[in-house]
């Protein structure tokens, strides 16, 4: 509930999202998908809509669609079919778009994501496959140009229930969805290339004097950035309240309207449309036979599904003791997250691996303008370095030096640590000699450690430091501690 013009207002928002699928070729023909290719160079009789040309379904598009739908917890239709959605527009060569009307590929899903310390649960109404239209080039004198390279590109249209309640929530949904489809490899999800397009349906419930007034739904067309999605919703909410105050028109008395988004002025604007614009006259496409998605096929696709980003983030927080923010950032890059898991599977200490991924490996990756995965160090080597630290064979500073050496040559971390003289000494005879030397040179501290309860702790710490210094930092601190205690005990007993 928000306050607009002194009224309690509840925004009701649903989203339609078009996701461009990451196939190599188009939905119904073998034309390659290539962004920025010369206009009308990636076309064939099928996507040009030439008479007699017949569409054939791209198996990969179906599989990617099912994978996205599974991640959205949808049911997959056993039988799904293809329908023609008829309308005239120059970028639509057949004068119809092949889509799915009454038997969509998937339905009844749920997408959950964290926002403001709670979990938003947004129901998914349906997800279906369809083909994209071509592109209009408007900046020609007195005419438009049409490029049909994009015509026939496979899209997954995802439709939510009207469960979103604010512009922030809608934007977060979109961000999380983009992350999800990218993670799954279902889409390249490049916002700059229009791989995700949003169409929010917005209206508001206005509470006044115990009565509820519902404004007519407005659909804002073709938003291709998170910013414009947020802006359009944030603009529509007060606009609809003001319009209702001025006209009194509600959903019961007014029709659903389409509006566009003016990116420069940051306002929604009415779209001119004819009365019959929504009469799409859907009917089954006789050129395409139905599709049955058998349970075995779904099971196989489910098997191939990677762990989803939100689950993985949670697991990284607990398993690798990572702060939530860092876990989130790490999971973002799937290759690096996979590498961390592989290093742990190779037996590496998880907490130390987590630390290494956040600090030293992240720093080296940064310096080299790549990701941690891009450093191309094997999981086994990463694990070995982590374990050298975990078992106290080298200290944290030495680990950074070994790591740097690992980037320069291919030797194992243990070998490099030895070559660089960074292995902590476990030679008790040598350490005992350093202890004797340190105690002899610091009689006052020894005295405090033995007889001054107030200073004993500090004095012992000082002596440990002295031994470490004598060893050049290479003595194993645990052994040093033990030997100092033993030497002090001998003196106390003497």
């Amino acid at each position, binding site marked *: 509930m928000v306050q607009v013009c002194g009224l309690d207002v509840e925004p009701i928002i649903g989203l339609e999202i078009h996701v461009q699928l990451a*196939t*190599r*070729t188009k939905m119904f*023909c*073998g*034309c*390659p998908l290539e962004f920025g290719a*010369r*206009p*009308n*160079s990636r*076309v*064939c*009789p099928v996507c*040009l809509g030439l008479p007699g040309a017949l569409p*054939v*379904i*791209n*198996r*990969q*598009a*179906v599989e990617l669609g099912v994978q996205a739908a599974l991640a959205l917890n949808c049911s997959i239709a056993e*039988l799904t*079919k293809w329908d023609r959605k*008829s*309308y*005239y*527009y*120059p970028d*639509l060569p057949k004068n119809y*778009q092949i889509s799915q009307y009454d*038997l969509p590929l998937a339905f009844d899903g749920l997408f959950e994501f964290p926002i403001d310390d709670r979990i938003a649960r947004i129901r998914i109404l349906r997800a279906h496959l369809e083909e994209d*239209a071509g592109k*209009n*080039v*408007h900046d*020609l004198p*007195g*005419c*438009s*140009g*049409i*490029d*049909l390279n994009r015509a026939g590109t496979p899209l997954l249209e995802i439709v939510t229930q009207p469960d979103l309640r604010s512009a922030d929530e809608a934007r977060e949904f979109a961000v999380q969805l983009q992350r999800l489809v990218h993670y799954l490899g279902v889409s390249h999800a490049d916002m700059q290339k229009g791989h995700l397009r949003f169409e929010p349906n917005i209206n508001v419930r206005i509470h006044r004097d115990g009565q509820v007034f519902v404004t007519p739904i407005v659909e804002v*067309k*073709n938003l291709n950035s998170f910013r414009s999605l947020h802006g359009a919703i944030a603009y529509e909410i007060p606009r609809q309240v003001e319009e209702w105050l001025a006209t009194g028109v509600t959903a019961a008395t007014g029709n659903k309207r*389409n509006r*566009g988004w003016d990116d420069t002025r940051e306002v929604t604007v009415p*779209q*001119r*449309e004819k009365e*019959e614009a929504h*009469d799409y*006259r859907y009917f089954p496409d*006789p050129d*395409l*036979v*139905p*599709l*049955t998605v058998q349970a075995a096929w779904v099971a196989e696709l489910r098997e191939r599904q990677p762990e989803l980003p939100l689950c993985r983030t949670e697991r990284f927080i607990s398993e690798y003791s990572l702060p939530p923010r860092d876990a989130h950032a790490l999971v973002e890059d799937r290759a690096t997250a996979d590498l961390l898991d592989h290093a742990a599977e190779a037996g590496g200490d998880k907490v130390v691996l987590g630390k290494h991924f956040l600090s030293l490996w992240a720093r080296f990756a940064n310096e080299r303008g790549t990701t941690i995965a891009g450093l191309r160090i094997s999981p086994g080597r990463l694990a070995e370095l982590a374990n050298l630290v975990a078992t106290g064979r080298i200290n944290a500073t030495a680990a950074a030096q070994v790591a740097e050496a690992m980037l320069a040559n291919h030797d194992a971390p243990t070998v490099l640590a030895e070559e660089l003289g960074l292995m902590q000494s476990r030679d008790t005879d040598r350490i005992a000699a350093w202890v004797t030397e340190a105690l002899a040179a610091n009689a006052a501290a020894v005295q405090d450690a033995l007889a001054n309860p107030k200073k004993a702790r500090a004095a012992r710490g000082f002596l440990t430091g002295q031994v470490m210094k004598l060893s050049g930092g290479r003595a194993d601190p645990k052994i040093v501690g033990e030997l100092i205690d033993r030497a002090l005990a001998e003196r106390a007993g003497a």
Partner: protein
Amino acid sequence: MAGEIDAERVRQIARLARLRLSDDEVMLFTGQLGALVEYVRQLDAVPTDGVEPLAHPVPVANVLRDDRPTPTLDTEVALRNAPQREGPLFRVPRVLDQGA
């Protein structure tokens, strides 16, 4: 689709199909379309209780192809039938962008 075929209906269908009809033609097609719908309507007499709706008359499903590129048409060939062109683009009257 129920609903009688009258002149208004014919005008609406013509509008959707971007056809401009004269009043005489509207009269003509109202009669013809009406007769056609009446003919097909005989099917209403067939009892269909308990019959599964048919998604396609051919008892075949799952005709799929692999996601492998196939040769495309040369741009010049693709544009050969275009009434007008603008470089590599099809040239059409200016359209107001209102999406699909």
